[in-house]
């Protein structure tokens, strides 16, 4: 049983020639790097690219360049924002740190979100349609099926955040994967 579970999370990346978007007759099908080769070495996840990208970066498994132009200023911020303070789901902890490792401030501010906390009304309705957080989450960052990676802070007086059928190893924020 354990073995089967282990095998199930060993990752399964389709070869480029069989992924449905590449033309198997293209010369690229034989030349491009295969996802299996690159991604199977990184901290695993159960969804998306099956990689915990934030952890892969933190742990030095990858070292992506930060800029092309030597004059570009690299801006990072280590500050958590708590959101959804009154809703029914657990509180959202938005970590600027993990986001600014990858992104520049200008990617979100002020087009998607105003800089002042609370000034932008954030809604799951918008997010599910690919706006706000949904510009990336659900397209390139971990998908919106992972409710508890964002809704991660238990409300005072409430029981633990995650429903019992969900395995915290897969669905909690900041884990090192299965």
């Amino acid at each position, binding site marked *: 049983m354990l073995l089967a579970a282990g095998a199930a999370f060993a990752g*399964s*990346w*389709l070869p480029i020639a*069989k*992924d*449905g*978007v*590449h*033309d198997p007759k*293209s*010369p*690229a*099908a034989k*030349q*491009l*790097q295969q*996802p299996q080769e*690159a*991604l199977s070495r990184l901290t695993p996840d*159960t*969804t*998306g*690219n*099956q*990689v915990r*990208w934030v952890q892969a970066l933190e742990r030095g498994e*990858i070292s*992506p*360049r*930060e*800029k*092309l*132009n030597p004059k*570009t200023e690299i801006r990072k911020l280590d500050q958590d924002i708590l959101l959804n303070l009154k809703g029914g789901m657990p509180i959202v902890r938005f970590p600027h740190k993990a986001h600014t*490792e*990858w*992104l*520049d401030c*200008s*990617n979100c501010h002020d087009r998607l979100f105003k800089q002042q906390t609370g000034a932008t009304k954030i809604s799951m309705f918008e997010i*599910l349609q*690919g706006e706000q957080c949904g*510009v*990336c989450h*659900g*397209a*390139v960052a971990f*998908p*919106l*099926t992972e409710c508890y990676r964002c809704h991660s802070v238990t409300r005072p007086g409430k029981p633990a955040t995650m429903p019992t059928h969900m395995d915290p190893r897969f669905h909690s924020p900041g884990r090192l994967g299965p």
Partner: protein
Amino acid sequence: MTLRTTIATLVLALAVCLGIPLAEAEYADVVINKQAEKNGMRPVVFPHWFHRIRFRCKVCHAELDFKMRAGANDVTMAAIIDGKFCGACHNNDIAWSVEKCDLCHSGKPGLPSGIYGGHETSGPGRW
């Protein structure tokens, strides 16, 4: 429903039940086909996974001004040869040059532009 679609639906349902993997793009693969096929080339497949191992999002989405919405950028070969967009790296210095047409223009003919699926979620269309 015709017999053919009924059979296709049943085969699909069976494949899903048995966990047989259907062809799926890697999560966040982008097909770029505003210009390509009109000009006799295969569509471009841009793999986010390959690029984010080597570059942070901010390099393309802040320094190079790629808007974060598939289809929002007018990426032409003229701009690329001029060193803009893909051409900032694909210049035979950081990455292969524009002469290697087929390495980027590698998509299945007829695919519409957009961001494609991936493991479990099948991408933006299915959460």
